[in-house]
Structure formats: structure tokens, C-alpha cells
């Protein structure tokens, strides 16, 4: 019984950590620009695919990872500069469609460059699973959790200790005021996209050994990330992490205990339930409407 429960929990936490990392990317961009970036999943794909293809070309793993992350970062900047910035007057839905267009475009290019096959990435360390009270844990899960934790801590430090991080926060709270105190808001937005892309690509790389990677892996993972961010409350870092983990755990528990056919339906019902009682997610900012 315990072993079974633990197994579901491990599975859920591993998937959930992935969702959480993607959700953090959403949160970051949402905070800085109030844009929901539907191309977030593509950063993941770029991270995984670029690493795989570079290592296949004989580039050492570490270097391949660095290059892939840089590529994703550049892509993030390009996305903000070329697609989001020129359309800053646009409606929320219009921005959503622009990011959807961007994700289709990036995916299309990836498909032409890298082909359509799924690719394997080796586990970072041993492929031997670890056994805990009868439940097994993939060693890569530890990497996902560890790197996830490092990134969350890193983000917290980034926002509280660095000038750039504080500037991003200030911009998210009040763009006009931020501009008045001399923050170059366009620069900040660009940075937010870049950091979010870095985050996404790292997530894409750490989960690739578990999920495999292909040109279209970003679609569903990106969507799940958005779901996680919404459960947690858009704009909340804690929310993204809690939202991601709880989504992953609910999925795994539902698949194990309720019905694997309906596990996604269970997850989506959970969202409806959360939003029914907390219209701004678990940790969303409570705002008073000014009239």
C-alpha cells in the first residue's frame, strides 16, 4: 500500500517538477509584461533538441547544454524584440495569438532542421533506479528535482538581490513608475523573456532523458505549464511551483487510483474546482478593482 502510494507520489513529483519549471517561465513573462506566452513550450523543445543534436555532432555534453541554453536565450530575446514589442498596443487575445503563431513557426523550423523523430538523451548519471520503501525512483528524477530547486532558489535571489531582478519586479508592478525612476522597461521585458527562455530550455534538457525529445514536445508540456501557472495564480512564483507539483501529483494519483482513461479529465476538473473557490488561483494577487 505504502509502496504503491509512494510510487505514485514519486511519479507525480517528477512530472510536477517539470510542470513547475515551465510554469515559472510563464510567471516570469506574465509578471513583466502580462503576456501569456504560448511559445513557452518551444523553449523546452529547443533546449532538449539542440542538446541532443549537438551531442550527436560530437560536441561534449556540457558544452552542448551551454550552447543549447544560449540558443534558447537568444530565441527568447528575438521573440520579445520581433514579435511582442512591435505589437505592444495589441489586445490580450491578440498577443496570445501572436505567441501561438510564434510557437507554430519555431516548431516548423525545428521540424525542418531536426526532423520529426523522437530522440533519446542519456540520463545525467546512472540509469539504475533508486529504491525507497519498495517504490522506485528514476535517478533522473533527482536531477529534475535538484536542478528545479536550484533554479527556484536562483530566481528568488535574482529577484531579491540583483538590480536587474528588482527592475523586472518593479516593472511588473507599475510600468509607468518604473520608467519614471529610470528603468528601461523595454530592456527589462527583453530580459524577462530571455530568463524565461533560459529557464524553459534548462527544464527541457533535464526532462529529456525521461520524456525523450522531439520537435513537437513543447505543445503539450507548454500547455501543462500554463495550467500549472493558472492553478497557482498567474504571477506568483510560489504558485507556479505549488501549481506544477500539485498538477503532477493529481495526475499520477488519478492514473493510479481512479482511472487512467480519465486522469487528464481529473486534472482539468481540479483546475475548475480551484478556480471556482479561488478565482485567481491558489496564490494569485487579490486585487481590488479601482473605479
Amino acid at each position, binding site marked *: 500500500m505504502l509502496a*504503491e502510494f509512494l*510510487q*505514485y507520489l*514519486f*511519479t*507525480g513529483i*517528477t*512530472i510536477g517538477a*517539470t510542470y513547475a519549471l515551465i510554469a515559472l517561465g510563464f510567471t516570469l513573462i506574465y509578471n513583466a509584461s502580462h503576456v501569456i506566452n504560448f511559445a513557452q513550450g518551444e523553449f523546452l523543445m529547443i533546449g532538449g533538441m539542440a542538446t541532443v543534436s549537438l551531442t550527436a555532432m560530437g560536441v561534449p555534453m556540457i558544452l552542448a547544454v551551454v550552447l543549447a541554453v544560449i540558443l534558447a536565450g537568444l530565441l527568447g530575446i528575438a521573440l520579445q524584440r520581433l514579435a511582442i514589442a512591435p505589437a505592444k498596443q495589441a489586445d490580450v487575445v491578440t498577443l496570445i495569438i501572436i505567441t501561438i503563431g510564434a510557437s507554430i513557426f519555431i516548431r516548423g523550423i525545428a*521540424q525542418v532542421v531536426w526532423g*520529426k*523523430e*523522437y530522440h*533519446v538523451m542519456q540520463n545525467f548519471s546512472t*540509469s539504475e*533506479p533508486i529504491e525507497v520503501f519498495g517504490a*522506485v525512483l*528514476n535517478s533522473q528524477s533527482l536531477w529534475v528535482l535538484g536542478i528545479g530547486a536550484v533554479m527556484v532558489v536562483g530566481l528568488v535571489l535574482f529577484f531579491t538581490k540583483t538590480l536587474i531582478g528588482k527592475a523586472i519586479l518593479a516593472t511588473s508592478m507599475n510600468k509607468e513608475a518604473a520608467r519614471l525612476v529610470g528603468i528601461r522597461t523595454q530592456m527589462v521585458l527583453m530580459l524577462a523573456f530571455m530568463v524565461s527562455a533560459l529557464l524553459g530550455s534548462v527544464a527541457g534538457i533535464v*526532462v529529456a532523458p*525521461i*520524456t*525523450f525529445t*522531439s520537435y*513537437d514536445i513543447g*505543445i*503539450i*508540456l507548454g500547455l501543462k505549464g500554463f495550467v500549472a501557472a493558472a492553478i497557482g495564480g498567474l504571477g506568483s512564483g510560489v504558485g507556479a511551483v505549488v501549481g506544477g507539483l500539485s498538477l503532477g501529483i493529481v495526475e*499520477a*494519483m488519478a*492514473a*493510479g487510483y481512479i482511472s*487512467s*482513461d480519465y*486522469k*487528464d479529465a481529473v486534472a482539468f476538473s481540479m483546475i475548475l474546482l480551484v478556480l471556482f473557490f479561488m478565482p485567481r488561483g491558489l496564490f494569485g494577487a487579490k486585487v481590488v478593482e479601482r473605479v
Partner: protein
Amino acid sequence: MLRTMMRRAGKCAAVAAAGLMMMSAQAAEPIKIGSFLSVTGPASFLGDPELKTLEMYVEKINEEGGVLGRPLELVHYDDVGNASSARNFASRLIRSDQVDIIVGGSTTGATMAAVPLIEQAQVPFISLAGAVVITNPVKKWVFKTPQTDRMAAERILTDMKDRGITKFGLISGTGGFGSSGRTQTLEVAEEMGMEVVADVTYSGSDTDMTAQLTNIRNTKGVEAVLNFGFGQGPAIVTRNYAQLGMELPFYQSHGVASDSFLELAGSSAEGLRLPASPLLVPDSLPEDDPQKEVVQNYKAEYEARWDSKVSTFGAYAYDGLMLAVRAIEEAGSTDPAAVRDALENIKGYVGVTGEFNMAPDDHNGLDADSFRILEVQNGEWKLIN
């Protein structure tokens, strides 16, 4: 963009007009082979080798003088794995391109979406998709080249029974292939007096199936596990299976019968069995096997031309095209009814997938024995029987 569209629309109209004018000079006309395949999208691992195969052999046949003295022309559209696109492209092939025969439909969903239209339009259609519903009940104009999922289920369950297994756990994808495979497996199991003690599913986009497998593992009496699905899902299942340390006999379906599956699953695949076309083990076939030559040639030609590993899915297209060519040759024209009748009477065509013996009540023409049971040993396919 609008201008491009107008230009294209103009072009379409011009082509259509030209088509009408040239009707009289039909003798010079190429034979049009229509095709809609899932070249991109989630089923691209099916559509991609299928299209490559079609392109390559249409070229080859034309170099060798065509069919009935007429060149072949391949008209192809990518349905992206979307059933309603498949239906629309089928309509475009029939109504706009006016093709003589259709070889296509990578997935059962795409095939079935096009079937009502094709039946009404009365165009011969050779599907490349697996499910048994495509040809059972028999539809007048619809044929298919892959073995049915029912045959796969029969083959696997027979092999289990031979090993003394009567109770097994089933894990299947919720996509068309897995879902249909699941239904067939449940039916065949009942007929063969076997018991499916656990029955779980995963969706095509899932990235971890440990929870479902744990569920099976904890079910009492499980003696083996069967995974029905295609795409990357079964590879993840295989890896999770190994991670969980499950040591029961493990079966996959023909949906993953390709070398790329071995690459994805890696060492986790060790010891698993599946039913597959002999294409994966061309050299292990006995010399007197009639398929040996066809299989070896196809593999060599495909790999030389595309510089990528051959897949059994491409072979479905090979057989589809060859059956179409043979039917047209036997009919002596592209008259749809004559071609259809010829297709229905093809006997003893030895293809890559198996030996086809079509009949009015069998538009597939294969039997379960055309599947070989393979086992993964030391990272390679080994022929078991």
C-alpha cells in the same frame, strides 16, 4: 499574402480547365496515384517513411517505363494526423485532382474519416492503417495492406499461450491505434480463454507511465504485460517497465516495430517480444522464404536512397503501391470498377508485409502468420518464429 492566394486559386482553376481539355487525349495522360498521409504531426513516424517509399517507387516505376505505357503521377497531401484534414484532402484528390486510385491514410482515424466519401465517389482506395474496422465489415472500395490489429492480438496471445501464460495485464494508448488494439485484445483474449486482469491506458502526450504500470504490477495473478500503442509512448512504457524492475514477460505490438523504437527504449527493451513484419530481420529469414528477396531489396533500396533506417510502416506503402500497380495492369485500364475488381482478385502477391490473397470477403488478404514474433536480444531483433 492575398495576392499569392489569388494567384494560386487562379493556378488551380487553370489546372482544372487544362485537365478537362486533356480528357480527350487520355492515352498520353499519366496515371494519377493520390495519397494523403500524416507526414507531419504526431503520426509522422508513419507518414514520413510512407511518403518516402511512394515517391521513390513512383520514380523507379517511371524510369522503368511506367504502367500500361503511361507514367505514374503521385499527388500527395499531408493531413498532419488530423482526420478531418484527411477527409478534405481525400475529397480534393477525388474531386479536384481526379486521381485514379488512392494509396494512403496513415492512421485508422484518417482512413475512416475518408471512407464514407470514397465509398460514395467509388474510387479504389488502399489504406495503410491498421485497425480491423477498416476492412471488417468489408467495404466495396476499401482495401488495406497492414495486418489488422486483431491479427496482432491473436499472434501475441498465441505466443503467450505457448509460453503457458493465461493471465496478463494490458496497457494501451488512448489514441486510435492503442484504443482499437485494446478492444481487439480484449475480444481475442476472451475467445482464447485468457484473462486480462489489469486494463489501464495512457494518453499520447504522457511522459511517464510509472503509475499505470505500478497498478498492473500490484494486480494479483499477472503473468505477462502487453502494451498496445505507437509513437514514443511505448518506448516510455518500456523504460518505466525496466525502472520498476518488472520481470514478467513483456509484449509490445507491431505499432513499434522499427529500429527507432530500439534506439528510444535502449537496454530497457531487452527480452521484450512483438509481432512484426520480417523486414526487421531480413537476413534471419530462411533462404526458401518467398518474402526474403522482396524484403531484402526494399530494405537496401530504401536505405540507399534516403540514408535512414527502413521502417515497417514504409513497407505498407510499398505493398499498397505495388498492389495498385498490379491491379491496374491486370485491369488493363484505370477504370475504377475494373481496378477494384482486379484488386479484389489479387492472389499470391508476395510483398514486404506478407503474402496477399485478396478475396471479395477479405480486403486485407493477409493472415496472422505473416507476422513473425521477434524478441529483442542484445539490442537487436531476433526471429523467434
